[in-house]
């Protein structure tokens, strides 16, 4: 027989007591800000506060969509996330397949260790490294370019380079780390399949194509669906650190725009309206992709 609610509360009191501070944290720092989105429907003024600021309905949403910036930053966000998915997604799979084919254990471990390392560097350090290595006057890359007889390129001041720099640095940082899950999936493949393939005369490439890849297909599809869901969730820090006025045509994304226009210039209501609009789209994307992956492979974020 199930005890009454009172009885259950009494039985679980220690656990509820342990949980309470955590829930307080979630309310104070996650749920209170969620209710803060009402300021996107107000003319919020820091000094008048919530009670004193007038309601303005959808004014700031309209303002956003009538603004030329809206199209540019939405396009930049989608493209940056899209390119990262397009080029960043296959990288760890290829790496995992190659690592799996290595015979030398020590070399394999070395390559793995080295490839995880960049994942643990802070965004500031990685961005600083990029700025230094790409510097037109002192950076190593430009020395090489000049040595080959070409003029130096001011990579970080030219809008057309931004996406390339961002996506390749993300791959540099994450390919190794993301390969872990695919390597784990490969270990679950039945070794007899490889023996059978060898008997049938399949070479190494054929084995990868016909045994290894099908063996990790489920993992690949699930990871892909989950990443589509997060395509708009581009880390603020790196884009913020590497972008500047000269490259805003390609480098200004929603989060950096909201920071600049909303927080620095004090357009609190306007910034919140943009954030909310994109937050809803992001929510739909993540929710849909999770539903999809759950149906496909009984795996999901939650």
């Amino acid at each position: 027989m199930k005890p009454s609610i009172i009885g259950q509360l009494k039985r679980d009191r220690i656990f509820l007591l342990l949980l309470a501070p955590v829930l307080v944290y979630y309310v104070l720092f996650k749920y209170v800000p969620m209710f803060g989105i009402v300021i996107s429907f107000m003319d919020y003024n820091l000094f008048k506060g919530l009670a004193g600021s007038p309601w303005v309905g959808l004014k700031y949403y309209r303002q956003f969509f009538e603004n030329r910036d809206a199209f540019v930053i939405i396009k930049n966000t989608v493209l940056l996330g899209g390119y990262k998915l397009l080029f960043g997604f296959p990288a760890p799979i290829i790496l995992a397949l190659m690592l799996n084919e290595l015979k030398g254990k020590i070399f394999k471990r070395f390559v793995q260790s080295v490839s995880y390392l960049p994942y643990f560097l802070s965004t500031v350090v990685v961005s600083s490294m990029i700025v230094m290595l790409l510097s037109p006057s002192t950076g190593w890359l430009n020395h090489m370019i000049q040595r080959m007889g070409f003029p130096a390129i001011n990579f970080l001041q030219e809008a057309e380079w931004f996406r390339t720099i961002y996506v390749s640095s993300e791959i540099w940082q994450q390919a190794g780390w993301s390969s872990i899950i695919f390597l784990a999936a490969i270990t679950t493949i039945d070794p007899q399949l490889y023996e059978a393939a060898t008997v049938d005369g399949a070479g190494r490439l054929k084995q990868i194509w016909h045994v290894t890849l099908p063996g990790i297909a489920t993992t690949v599809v699930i990871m892909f669906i989950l990443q589509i869901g997060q395509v708009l969730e581009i880390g603020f820090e790196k884009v913020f650190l590497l972008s500047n006025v000269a490259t805003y045509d390609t480098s200004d994304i929603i989060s950096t725009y909201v920071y600049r226009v909303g927080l620095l210039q004090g357009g609190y209501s306007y910034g919140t309206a943009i954030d909310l609009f994109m937050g809803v789209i992001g929510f739909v994307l993540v929710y849909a992709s999770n539903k999809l992956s759950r149906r496909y492979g009984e795996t999901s974020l939650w």
Partner: protein
Amino acid sequence: MKKHTGLFDVVNVLLLGIFACAMLFPFVHMAAVSVSSAEYVVGNQVGLWPKGINFDAYTAVFQDRRILVGYQNTLVYVALGTTLSLIFTTMGAYSLSRRNLVFGRTFMLMIVFTMLFTGGLIPTYLVVRSYGLLDTIWAMVLPGLVSSWYLIIMRTFFQGIPRELEESGTIDGLSDLGILLRIVLPLSKPVILTISLFYAVQIWGNFFYALIFIRDAGLMPLQVIIRNIVMIGQYSDTTVSSAIGDKNVILESLKYAVILVGTLPIMLVYPFIQKHFVKGAMMGSVKG
């Protein structure tokens, strides 16, 4: 399986070798430039091997008060933040790992929802501001106190502990709290270690909170200092004067030295803790 080495293996090893070099190259190059003497750096002659080895750049870095203050602040944030985050996450994860916890599903849903939807930058800023946390240590620690992701990983781990162990604890007369402290936590050392490492790395590298919540120069973490020196190009009088001394410290060497000093702790401990990180990545990928 066949053991002979064919063209396939040669190409594979070669490509992975190049890949490993690409991973390591920036570190080696930075290290080489940071200890090379000015004339070689200016002449762009330093590639992978230092020329005219000296440690003037590091002397200059360690004489810069801002870096020392930043280091100290970051260490405080990491120590305080990791401890608090770990305690809160463990308490939450353990309670929520109870299968029949009253309102357990509701609480879980409430936590998962925050992974999907947030108030966004400005409401978060305004809320932290209204709590009076701007320009305090707490602004670096409290807003990110519990990561839902790590909480779920830990909860999954706790759920995997056999119930019989807990029941035997009850028979031995342990209270619910006693079971947590005497039985569950000692069994959970690996997950606790892994999660605290993740928290520590995250807090160490946190630039965002400092950017929006901190104005006071005395509270700036190391990441902000690195950015100011390397990317914005501020350098204090101390570094300039030490550069003017008898030996020239060129700005480029100095900047690389700053970056490396900021990376040093993780580079030093990385080889020893790598396997715990990997374990964490695996835990995150399997759902219980």
